[in-house]
């Protein structure tokens, strides 16, 4: 049995959550939460934490980078690998907000979050 402690981010309460994990890595119990949303968050965060990546890419012909994001969260452990791929990318104008720049970045699409005209 292992225990992990987390701060809940679902609401401003910031409950301290304790998650008990079985030796097989499954969630046995969540304590410390004051609502069901907290328990759900704890489970997800322990088993497969994901994050939306927001960063910039190089745009041809200008020093100013273009802001981008993944259209859905990607596994947290791949954030730095994702950064490497994004940093090697170069886009050409015109790009419209929402345009897909990479089709598969660890399960998500990389999309522009601003126009490049």
């Amino acid at each position: 049995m292992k225990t992990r402690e987390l701060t809940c981010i679902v609401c401003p309460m910031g409950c301290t959550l304790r998650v008990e994990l079985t030796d097989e890595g499954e969630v046995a119990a969540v304590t410390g939460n004051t609502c069901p949303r907290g328990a759900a968050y704890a489970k997800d965060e322990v088993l497969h934490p994901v994050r939306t990546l927001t960063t910039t890419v190089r745009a041809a012909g200008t020093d100013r980078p273009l802001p981008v994001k993944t259209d859905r969260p990607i596994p947290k452990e791949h954030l730095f690998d994702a950064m490497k791929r994004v940093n090697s990318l170069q886009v050409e104008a015109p790009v419209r907000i929402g345009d897909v720049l990479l089709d598969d970045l660890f399960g998500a699409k990389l999309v522009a979050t601003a126009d490049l005209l």
Partner: protein
Amino acid sequence: MNSYQVAVIGAGVVGSLVARELTKYDLSVALIEAREDVATGSTAANSSIVHGGFDPEPGTLKASLNVKGTAMMPALAAELGVSYRNNGSLVIAFSAEEMETVRALYARGRTNGVPADSLSVLGQAELRKLEPNVSDDAVGALRCASAGIVCPYGLAIAAAGNAADNGASLYLSAPVTAIAKRDGKFLVTAGPHMIQADYLVNCAGLYADRVARLIGDDSFTLRPRKGEYLLFDKSEGELTGHTMFQVPTTAGKGVLVTPTVDGNLLIGPTSVFSDDREDKSTSADGLAFVRETAGKSVKGLNFRQVITSFSGLRAVPDGEEKDFIIRFSERDGHFLHCAGIESPGLSASPAIAVYVADLLRDAGLPMRPNPRFDPCRRSDHWFRRLSAAEKNEVIRKDPRYGRVVCRCETVTEGEIVEAIHRAPQATTLDALKRRLRSGMGRCQGGFCTPLLVELLAKETGKAPTELCKGAPGSLLLAGTLKKGAEQA
């Protein structure tokens, strides 16, 4: 190798004014500065006061040059377009005993030649009428109407620029590391340059003793003495009209409270000897002392409106020397020291320049007037001083004057580009700040720094990652991001 009749070492306010004074004559003049800009040493950070001249010991160079320099300052500031205000000063007394000192200062002022109509001893009622925010504990004061405030680095920049406009050669980033003598001429190693000169004037500020050592002269040693200051937002600039000193006591000289020419309020300084000539740090203790001591003079100091703190170093002669050291070296009759210019050095600087020229003439330097000398330099602040209609005329011809880059101080792109290209050329953020006040306002560069970096890079052709805040090594950025394919 470039050859000059006179080379001035050090482009602080003294060196810059000396160089300018010499361009009034038909002379070839070099102004050599170790740093990347003029006015980075004691000139950059001091009280910015034009003292009346009642304080120095009678009979000293300090006394005579202070009184003369203060009298010259208004006209000089006008010629050079430098901010100056004749706001007068007060020495505040807090006891009957201190009033005695006030009377003694009055008498000394008269001995030193301070005009009689400029000095007056005020009682409590008169003082309060003049300065309603003066402390309730103040019992009287010495008023000196001829005292004023000036922008010290503005004065040095304008003097160096005017010297350059009148033909002087300005060498920046040129630290003097060796001085040799060959065929009766000095050979000066100044950074990448070799400069030949008949006469040298040592205006090297905090490093003047080290420059003296380069010709084997160890007749004086300087010790830096640090002063820490607090600067308030312009919202506090009218707390006092006069510059307020405290009566010097055995416990110390007290601290001053003064408006600045830019409309801020300044309090300080501390006075502590330091062993490091580059130490511009502030300390929690020092700033606490300034806050506490300044609070004795005036009511209503609002410390929430402090926008920055800073410190400066004064070059104070060690040992027996109590006066300015302005004399030819005993080692070489063509090497003139202009050293130990501590307070009231700024006030005296215009007169020091004339005095130096006189000493050089007496030493045999031929000095015919330069018919092409133009005493005037357009102020770095020329644009902001125009009327709205005049500004519009300028903006119509050059729209860059219509784009505000520093919002707190309303500095336009046009002014910045001009300062980057005009002598003495600004190549760093601090250099721009000293000329235009960009980044000196309430946000302290938060908004304009990235914009200034873009403009400096564009106008100087340097990469943003090569740009400095000020001193060598003070790089602003660590790298460029998003190299795209190069990175892969």
